[in-house]
């Protein structure tokens, strides 16, 4: 065994797996793809197989939702084995061209969408917004997210956050145009080298701000900064955590009624990965006129929208119904007219699914911030 391969076996504790099957049993994509992570773990024990397994298309079906890790009785992380296999393919350079483009874009332009760095703050044009200055003390550093900053469908979420923060007179400052990708998806896509580089660069950049708390819009940014940036000097917090606190303290008031039946979809990177379940619900309960419904598959059992794990840049081979479409059907079955989310990837995939099902008249997919913007008046 060479030392690199010995590392794989030990790093993922493959021999610790008891082959109980709880991972595959809970895997949301196993129902619609050939992915069987239990078998992948078993076969990966033989180092001669790693190269071959790394070329299988279904290792790219994993959304890194963490259901497997949550369920594993041995505390293993099967999703990390799949990411490790993706790393083998990435190092060979032979990844799908969409993956290649996203990774090159993060390296060259600080975002995976092939957009120029220079236009990162365009969404804020005309808006009264505060940009943090390195070294100048501020209470909350705001990290917007590449997807929210550049996607015209999502830019309103950033504007809504700024409006709500302004209304509540919160002391905040945006990272601004030096903001660069949190690289949660770079990690999920298996580009460990680029991820390490971005962690180093981001730690340096963010630590230059005199702040104790950083607030993110995306659960992916929140999770990556919280769990994978050991030298980051500040607390990483999701916006639902900050805003629920402000509501509880009476610093934010919701005066306008929003008379809708809303069901909240727990994002995997907020719920399963970081156990944040209460804060989004608390916020929705404060909105006058809202009737709160709950999915049967809620909290840790939330059904992954298939937006994470690099899936924004990888197409699955499966033609079976997407999980997001399944989720839309469940929301309609509950009688919801709003499906509330708190993650940009969830919005994109669920909104696409809503359109695919032709249900745009009956229901809307919105971020909690859009509801708040209506409710603050």
């Amino acid at each position, binding site marked *: 065994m060479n030392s690199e391969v010995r590392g794989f076996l030990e790093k993922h504790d493959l021999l610790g797996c008891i082959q109980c099957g709880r991972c595959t049993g809970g895997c949301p994509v196993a129902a619609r793809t050939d992915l069987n992570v239990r078998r992948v773990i078993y076969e990966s024990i033989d180092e001669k197989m790693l190269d071959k397994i790394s070329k299988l298309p279904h290792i790219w079906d994993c959304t890194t939702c963490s259901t497997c890790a949550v369920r594993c009785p041995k505390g293993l992380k099967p999703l990390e084995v799949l990411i490790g296999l993706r790393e083998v393919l*990435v*190092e*060979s*350079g*032979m*990844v799908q*061209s969409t*993956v*290649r483009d996203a*990774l*090159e*874009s993060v*390296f*060259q*332009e600080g975002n995976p969408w*092939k*957009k*120029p*760095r*220079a*236009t990162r703050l365009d969404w804020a044009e005309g808006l009264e917004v505060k940009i943090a200055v390195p070294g100048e003390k501020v209470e909350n550093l705001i990290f917007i997210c590449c997807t929210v900053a550049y996607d015209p469908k999502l830019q309103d979420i950033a504007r809504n956050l700024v409006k709500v923060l302004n209304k509540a007179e919160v002391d905040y400052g945006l990272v601004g145009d030096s903001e660069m990708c949190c690289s949660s998806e770079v990690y999920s896509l298996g*580009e*460990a*080298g*680029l991820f*390490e*580089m971005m962690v180093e660069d981001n730690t340096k950049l963010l630590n230059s701000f005199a702040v104790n708390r950083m607030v993110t819009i995306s659960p992916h940014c929140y999770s990556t900064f919280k769990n994978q940036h050991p030298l980051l000097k500040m607390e990483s917090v999701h916006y639902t955590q900050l805003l629920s606190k402000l509501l509880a303290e009476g610093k934010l008031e919701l005066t306008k009624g929003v008379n809708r039946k809303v069901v909240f979809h727990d994002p995997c990177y907020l719920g399963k990965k970081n156990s944040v379940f209460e804060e989004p619900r608390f916020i929705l309960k404060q909105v006058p006129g809202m009737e709160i419904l709950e999915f049967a598959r809620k909290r840790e059992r939330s059904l992954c929208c298939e937006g994470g794990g690099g899936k924004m840049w990888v197409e699955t081979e499966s033609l079976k119904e997407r999980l997001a479409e399944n989720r839309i059907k469940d929301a309609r079955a509950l009688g919801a007219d709003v499906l509330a989310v708190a993650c940009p990837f969830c919005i994109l995939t669920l909104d696409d699914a809503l359109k695919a099902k032709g249900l745009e008249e009956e229901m809307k997919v919105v971020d909690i911030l859009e509801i708040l913007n209506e409710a603050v008046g």
Partner: protein
Amino acid sequence: MKMFVCIKRVPDTSEADVKIDQTGKNVDSSRFSFGINDADNYAVEEAVLIKERRGGEIKFLCIGPKDSDVVIRMSLAKGGESAVRIEDPRINQKDPLQVAKVLAAAIKKEQFDLVMTGCMSGDDSNMSVGVALAEELGVPHAAMVKNVEILDGKVRVKRELEGGLSEVVEMFLPAVITIQTGINVPRYAPIRGIREAQKKELNVLKLEDLGLAEEEVNEAGSGVELLKLYVPVVASSAEMIEGTPEEKAEIIAVKMVKGGLL
């Protein structure tokens, strides 16, 4: 196989807002993203594939400022041995014939089997450098190549023509080939590979190192003078000419004479 691949760092203008700058002869590039010229990227991949199949050496050539280094290192990471970057403010990069002179000066110093360039750059779109380069080097060339097959002392290529037709051309080596996009699927250069590539040789040269006189390659020495760059005004003024071919011909001829074109 000793191969040279010419690469260029260009802006990505697919979605960018292109505005003319104050000089009226250039675009404002402050809000662009930059990367390797698309067709050049395919040429890099083709060279690496040839090297993987037959062995050999690849040297990258690039005319540009220090910003171009990242594009050079990414290419080296994919499978090059060394690179030369030519940086000299005197070089007129807008004239493809002069660009070809500069590249030829760097290539002539060494023995080579094959030179590859992209068929066209994403910014200037002249489609001329590769072809002019072949003339400067005194070797045969084939442009818009979609398939490359190395034979004994020769290369057989398929050129892409209009209408989806393919022309098969065989040339003696050494030769120059300009590569059309879509010939292969360019690989990804992982960061670890790019880091390794930092150790590879990258020489930066000036005109003096190439034995070129300023007058040969500067703006004054160009056969073409750029007068103005502008966004054409969108207007519509189309007159449909009716009649038999003979009637149409007469009407058009009258218009051309009256319009001062003949």
